[in-house]
């Protein structure tokens, strides 16, 4: 637990006693606790399935192909173009002007992720299933990190991707992206590209916790930057929070759960938050929830754990 979660001495006295998360006894209760996990898997697999079904089983919607292409660029029900804004940005930086279709597709998704935050990573990206599995196994094994790596490494890789795109004249990350290899090979046929996913699995399992998504992936970094002012946020209720730290334990980006900041704003206000909602069912006090940015009202400042913060505006 980092310093951000440690309650200051004075405030912990005024708080309710700390209770830790206990999984519900009934299966239904557990299932309810997994609601966001199940929803995330449904959207992740569902989107891949729509691509796969359209290609291999001819799925249609009113006579038009349901979802043609892959996560890099696609066409939904024969009209709506969609495109990965990061891939398009790299292509534009490489000095090649693109057609309106793909620019429009990128603009649509850009707008979506500006509103919804970094949801691509937790709700769409197929690599998330690989890294989640690695993370789950890692927690069972109790592995320690081999080395420390700054979480800002990904922003350097993001910059490097754009610089190399400009220098080399091709979309630098797209040409080596393990994510693109993964969804392309799931949709168009399995090949050696899956070794990249295997490499990430091993990295996350044995070498560095959340190594890929939390430290290296420039696509995640890009969506994190897009989602800095996202409308969809995790709401935080400081009055009920006991600072038990359960949320930070399951969070893949634990630094976003800076409760002092969250109390001030009434929400988890970091672009790096993927809105994965792991923290919501685990919270024993129901202090966290998904909400629209404008429906959030910060808690009265009296309950602010750090009295010095109160006066800083």
């Amino acid at each position: 637990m980092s310093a951000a979660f440690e309650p200051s001495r004075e405030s912990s006295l005024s708080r309710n006693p700390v209770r830790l998360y206990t999984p519900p006894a009934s299966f239904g209760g557990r299932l309810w606790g997994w609601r966001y996990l199940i929803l995330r898997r449904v959207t992740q697999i569902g989107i891949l399935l729509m691509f796969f079904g359209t290609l291999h089983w001819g799925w249609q919607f009113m006579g038009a192909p349901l979802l043609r292409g892959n996560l890099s660029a696609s066409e939904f029900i024969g009209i709506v173009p969609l495109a990965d804004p990061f891939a398009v940005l790299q292509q534009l930086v490489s000095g090649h002007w693109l057609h309106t279709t793909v620019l429009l597709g990128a603009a649509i998704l850009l707008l979506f992720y500006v509103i919804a935050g970094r949801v691509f990573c937790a709700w769409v990206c197929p690599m998330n299933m690989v890294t989640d599995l690695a993370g789950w196994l890692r927690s069972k094994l109790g592995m320690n990190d081999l080395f420390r790596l700054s979480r800002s490494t990904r922003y350097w890789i993001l910059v490097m991707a754009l610089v190399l795109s400009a220098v080399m004249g091709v979309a630098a990350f797209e040409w080596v992206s393990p994510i693109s290899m993964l969804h392309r090979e799931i949709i168009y046929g399995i090949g050696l590209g899956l070794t990249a996913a295997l490499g990430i699995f091993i990295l996350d399992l044995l070498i560095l916790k959340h190594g890929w998504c939390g430290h290296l992936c420039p696509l995640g970094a890009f969506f994190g930057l897009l989602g800095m002012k996202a409308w969809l946020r995790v709401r935080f209720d400081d009055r009920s929070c006991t600072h038990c730290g359960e949320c930070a334990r399951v969070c893949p980006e634990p630094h976003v759960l800076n409760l002092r900041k969250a109390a001030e704003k009434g929400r988890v206000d970091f672009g790096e938050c993927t809105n994965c909602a792991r923290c919501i069912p685990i919270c024993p006090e129901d202090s966290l929830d998904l909400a629209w940015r404008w429906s959030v009202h910060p808690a009265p400042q009296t309950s602010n754990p750090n009295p010095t913060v109160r006066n800083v505006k």
Partner: protein
Amino acid sequence: MDSKRRQFLQKTVQGAAVAACGGLVWAHLLRQEAAASVLALRPPGALAEVDFAAACIKCGQCAQACPYDTLRMARAEETVPIGTPYFIPRAIPCYMCTDIPCVPACPTGALDPQLKDISKARMGLAVIDAESCLSWQGLRCEVCYRVCPVKGDAISIQNHPRKTSKHALFVPIVHSEACTGCGMCEDACPTEEAAIRVINPKLVQGRIGSHYRLGWKSDTPITQEFKPTELPSTPSAPMPVEAPAPKTAPGMDTLNQGIEP
């Protein structure tokens, strides 16, 4: 210099060094991949390879639009830049649909929507290996000529009369100005390994250069009398050299005539 500032500067330099090392490795990977692109046969209307590499977003919508499953998406283990569409004629050639469905499916313009006439497509160039071509050995094959969708223009049959004990050679000749590179000839070629293959024209096509004057093609006082009776088409492989000089002009021999009589 105080130690904090020194530390900061050191960290910055070290960070830049790591970034530079990583960038060099990354750039090397990109170069390696891009180098393979010359081996790939692209869909109709594909831009010149450098532009295509920049514009293709690797979404595979062209491959999905192809009714014959000709187009495939390159996998990591193949010697084609990863994720880009290409085809292998000997597996499934391009059947040259007149409505060219793959081109409008491309969202980025890597396949040029200006291409409306499929016979204007230039996916590659058919090249004949005369050493294994049945027709060049003296058999009557001509399968490539028959299956060619631009029959007569892209592949023509030339007959070369030989000595009286042998019948004439009927050899296929590819004409680069009409060949679309669809690969139907390669797919149909009956030899064990195709004797006619479609490859990137860059790998085989030469260029004469403007400094050479083909005197017999232009009318100058010196050259007009040296015109050969009929100029042979250029075959795409060396031919047997064994011919007496024709009668038309001194200096005309097999080098500029090229026909085994």
